[in-house]
C-alpha cells in the first residue's frame, strides 16, 4: 500500500522513461524473434 508521496514530476519522468525502456524491450524481443526465425 503506497503511503509515501510518489511525486508528480518525478513520477511522470519515471513513467516516460518506463515507456521508452518498455518500448526498447519490445524492439529487442522483435529483433531476436526475426533473427531466430532467419537462423531456423
Amino acid at each position: 500500500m503506497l503511503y509515501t508521496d510518489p511525486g508528480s514530476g518525478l513520477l511522470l519522468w519515471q513513467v516516460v522513461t518506463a515507456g521508452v525502456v518498455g518500448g526498447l524491450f519490445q524492439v529487442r524481443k522483435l529483433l531476436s524473434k526475426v533473427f531466430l526465425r532467419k537462423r531456423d
Partner: protein
Amino acid sequence: MPRTSAAPSFRDPAGHVIVHEDRVLRVVNKPGDSELSAFLSSGVAHRLLDTGALVRTERASGDLTQLAASISECSVYEHERIPFSSYPSEWPPEMLHAAGVLTLDIAEQCLDEGFGLKDASPYNILFRGPDPVFIDALSFERRHPGDPTWLAYAQFMRNFSLPLLAHKRLGIPIDQIFRTRRDGVWPGELCSWAGPWRQLLPPFFSLATLPFWLTRFEKDRLYRHRRMAHDQSLFVLRSLFRRLRRTLRRLEPGQRSSAWSQYGHVPPSYTTEQSARKQEFVDGFLRRSRPSNVLDIGCNTGVFSLLAAQRGSSVVALDADPVVVGKLWRSVRERKLDVLPLVVDIARPTPALGWRNQESVSFLGRARGAFDAVFMLAVIHHLLVSERVPLDEIVGLLADLTTRYTVVEYVGPDDPMLRRLARGRDHLHRDLTVAAFENACLAHFKIVEKAPLPRCSRVLYVLVKR
C-alpha cells in the same frame, strides 16, 4: 511498572513500533502481517538477514499481556536492538551515500522474488558501527508482477540523489538539509539553489530540472496503476535501478579537506612526544577500565576512537566537521571497527525534531546513560573560548553523559591554541587554572588519574563519577 513508549512510526498504516522494557516490538495489523510473514519466509529475506543488511526480526515471544490494549487483533514482531540510533542529519555525505546504496541493493534483490520496497526513506536505515542496516521490516510488499513503476522512486530521489547532488555540486551541508526537511529536497527547490544557468546543465537538468518542468503536466490519471507483461516490467525496473545506481556512483563524495582535517598532525597542536604520551595515557585507561561503550566528543580524525574500538569498546565518535567524520567513517568501515562516527556539534547538539518533537529524539536524549566512558580530549578550550560555555556547565554535561568514567584534557590559558581562539580576549580566561578546573570536576567526579603533558600546560585526567 514496565516501561513502554511508542516510537514515532505512525506514517505506515500497516503498523507501528513500540519500545517495551528495552525490547523493540513492531505491532502489525492483519494486512501488514500477511505481507511481512510472506516476506520473512522468502529467500531474499534470509539472505538479507544472514548478511546483517536487514535488522533481525522474528515473532515476539514472552509475556506481552502488558501491551494488550495496543496489540489487540495485531501480530507482534521483535527486532534486534541497534546499539545507538542516528538520523540522516547526523550523517556525513559518505554515510547517506552508503544508506542509498543499501536501499537500492535491497530493492533490486527483492525484485527477483516478487517483492518491492514501498518506501525509500533514509529513516529506514540505522548504522550498526559503520555498517548500514535496513530496519523497516514493513517496507516490503508483494509487487504486482506487471507493474513497471517503483512508486518510492521520487522519495529515493528526494532523500538520496538530490541531497547528495546539492552537497557535491553546491556545497550544501547534508545536516542542514535534513534538519529542516522531513522528506529531503524537492526538484524545484534544487533548481532554485542551482540558479538559472546551472539548472540547465547535467546532471541538474535530468535529475531536477526536467522533473520540475514536468510537474505542470500533472493529471489525476498519472496516479492510476500501470501494467505491462511481467518480463517487460522487470526489464524496465532493472534498467531504472541501474540508472539510479549509476547516478549514486557519480554523486559519491570524494576526498575533501577542511580546516580541521589536518588537525593533530601539524604544529602547534602537539609535538611527537606529547602525542605519544597522550596516546599512552588513553590506552592505559582503556586497558585497565575496559569500558563497553565510549562516547568520543570532538573525535577529529578519530585516533582515540580507533584505539578504544581496538581495545573492544563500542564507540560513538562525534565531531562538528562533516569532512573529518566522513574520513573517519571510511577508515573504520575499511578496518571493520565498531565505531559510529556522527556529525554532531556538542555545543549545539541535534534537537528533538518532527511531529510533537517526538519523531527524532534529541542527541542528548539518546546519549544520556548510554556510555560508561566519555572522552573529551582537546575540546574544552573550544567550548570555553569559542562557544563561551562556563567550565561548570561543561563538567555538568560530562556528568550527564557518562555512567562512570570521563577522560578529559585540561588546556591552560597560555596554550597556543587557546590563545589563537581567544583572539586577544585572554583576560576572559585569567581565572582558568588547574586548581579551578579540578574544583569544577570535583563537584561531580573523583579524580583517579592525572598526567601533565610534557612541556605544555595541558593535563590529562581520568575522572570517575561520584
